[in-house]
C-alpha cells in the first residue's frame, strides 16, 4: 500500500513538473505581483466591492436582487467562473460569464441589459469570478460546445491582420520572449476580469482579445461576437486545471 502511494506521489510530481504552462502572473515584475497578492493594494478590489453591493441591490421591474435567488455569493457562486464559457440552451451558443450575468439581469430582474464592458457589468463579473479564486479552471464536458471550441482553436492558429500573425505564433511559439518592452505571456485566461495598469482600469477577456487583434492590425470582432467566445472556449480548455486568480493585475 505504501509503495503504491509512493509511486502515485512520484507520478503526480512528475506530472506537475512537466506542465510547462505558466500564468501571466509569473511573467510580471515582483512589484506588479505584489499589487495582485495584496487585496488592500489591488485596485480591482474597488470593482469587487461595487459588485458585492450590486449583488444585494434590488433592480428592474421585478425588484429582485441577485441574492434573492442565489443567496450568499461565497457559497452559491463558488466554482461558477471555472466553468465558463458554457453552452446556453436558450440561444444555442456558448456564452461567457458576463453574458450569463446579463441574461439573468434581463430575464429575472426584468432590467435593461448592462452594456458590455460597462463598469456595472465588470463589477458584478469580478465579484462573481472572485468566488472561484484558487480553484482550477474546469471547462464543461458538453458535446454541444465542441464545434465552437474547434472553431476557436482554428482562429487561434490562423494568421490575421496586416502583420499576418496568429495568436499561436506569439503565445505558443514565442512565449517568454519580448515584444518591444513587454514580455509575451502564454495567454492563459486565469484572472479575468483583470486590472491592467495600461488601461488604468478593469477589463474583460474580450477587451484583451480585441486589443491583441487590433495590435496585429486586424479588424477586431465586436463585444459579444461568437468568434470571441469561441476563442475564450479554446483558451479555457488550454488552461484546464490552472488556478483562477480573479481579480488579477497585469501590466
Amino acid at each position: 500500500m505504501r509503495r503504491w502511494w509512493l509511486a502515485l506521489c512520484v507520478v503526480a510530481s512528475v506530472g506537475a513538473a512537466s506542465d510547462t504552462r505558466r500564468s501571466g502572473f509569473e511573467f510580471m515584475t515582483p512589484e506588479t505581483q505584489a499589487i495582485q497578492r495584496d487585496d488592500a493594494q489591488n485596485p480591482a478590489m474597488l470593482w469587487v466591492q461595487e459588485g458585492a453591493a450590486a449583488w444585494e441591490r434590488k433592480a428592474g421591474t421585478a425588484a429582485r436582487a441577485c441574492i434573492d435567488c442565489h443567496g450568499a455569493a461565497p457559497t452559491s457562486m463558488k466554482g461558477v467562473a471555472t466553468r465558463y464559457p458554457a453552452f446556453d440552451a436558450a440561444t444555442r451558443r456558448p456564452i461567457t460569464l458576463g453574458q450569463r450575468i446579463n441574461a439573468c439581469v434581463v430575464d429575472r430582474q426584468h432590467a435593461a441589459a448592462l452594456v458590455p464592458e460597462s463598469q456595472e457589468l465588470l463589477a458584478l463579473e469580478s465579484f462573481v469570478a472572485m468566488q472561484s479564486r484558487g480553484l482550477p479552471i474546469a471547462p464543461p464536458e458538453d458535446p454541444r460546445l465542441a464545434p465552437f471550441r474547434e472553431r476557436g482553436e482554428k482562429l487561434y492558429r490562423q494568421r490575421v491582420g496586416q502583420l499576418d500573425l496568429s495568436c499561436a505564433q506569439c503565445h505558443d511559439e514565442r512565449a517568454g520572449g519580448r515584444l518591444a518592452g513587454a514580455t509575451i505571456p502564454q495567454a492563459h485566461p486565469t484572472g479575468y476580469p483583470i486590472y491592467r495598469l495600461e488601461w488604468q482600469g478593469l477589463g474583460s477577456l474580450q477587451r484583451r482579445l480585441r486589443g491583441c487583434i487590433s495590435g496585429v492590425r486586424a479588424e477586431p470582432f465586436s463585444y459579444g461576437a461568437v468568434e470571441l467566445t469561441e476563442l475564450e472556449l479554446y483558451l479555457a480548455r488550454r488552461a484546464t486545471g490552472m488556478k483562477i486568480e480573479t481579480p488579477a493585475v497585469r501590466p
Partner: protein
Amino acid sequence: MARALITMPKTAKRGEIVEIRTLIAHPMETGYRAGDDGQLVPRDLIRRFSCRYDGELVFSAELFPAVAANPYITFCTLATASGTLQFSWEGDRGFSQTENVVLTVT
C-alpha cells in the same frame, strides 16, 4: 460617490503603530491627454488627501498628474486613544469624499 477601500486594524494597543492603507476609485485625468475626438480631456485630479484622528491632522498629501488612477496611499500613525479616523480626498470639479473608521485603543 466614489468607491474607497480602507484597510486598517479595528483595535490596537496604546502606543502601538498602526498601518493604514487607502485606495480610492478615481480616474486621475492629467489634463494633458487628447480624447477620441482630438480635444484635450479636462484635468480631473484628486489634489489633496488628509487623515484626521479625532480632529487632529495626522497625515496629509498633495497629489499631482503623475499619480496613477485609483490612488493607493499608505501611512502609519500612533494609536493614542479610541477615536475616529476621518479620511478625506478633495480634488478638481468639486470632488470631495470623506470616510470614517473607528479605532478602538485598549
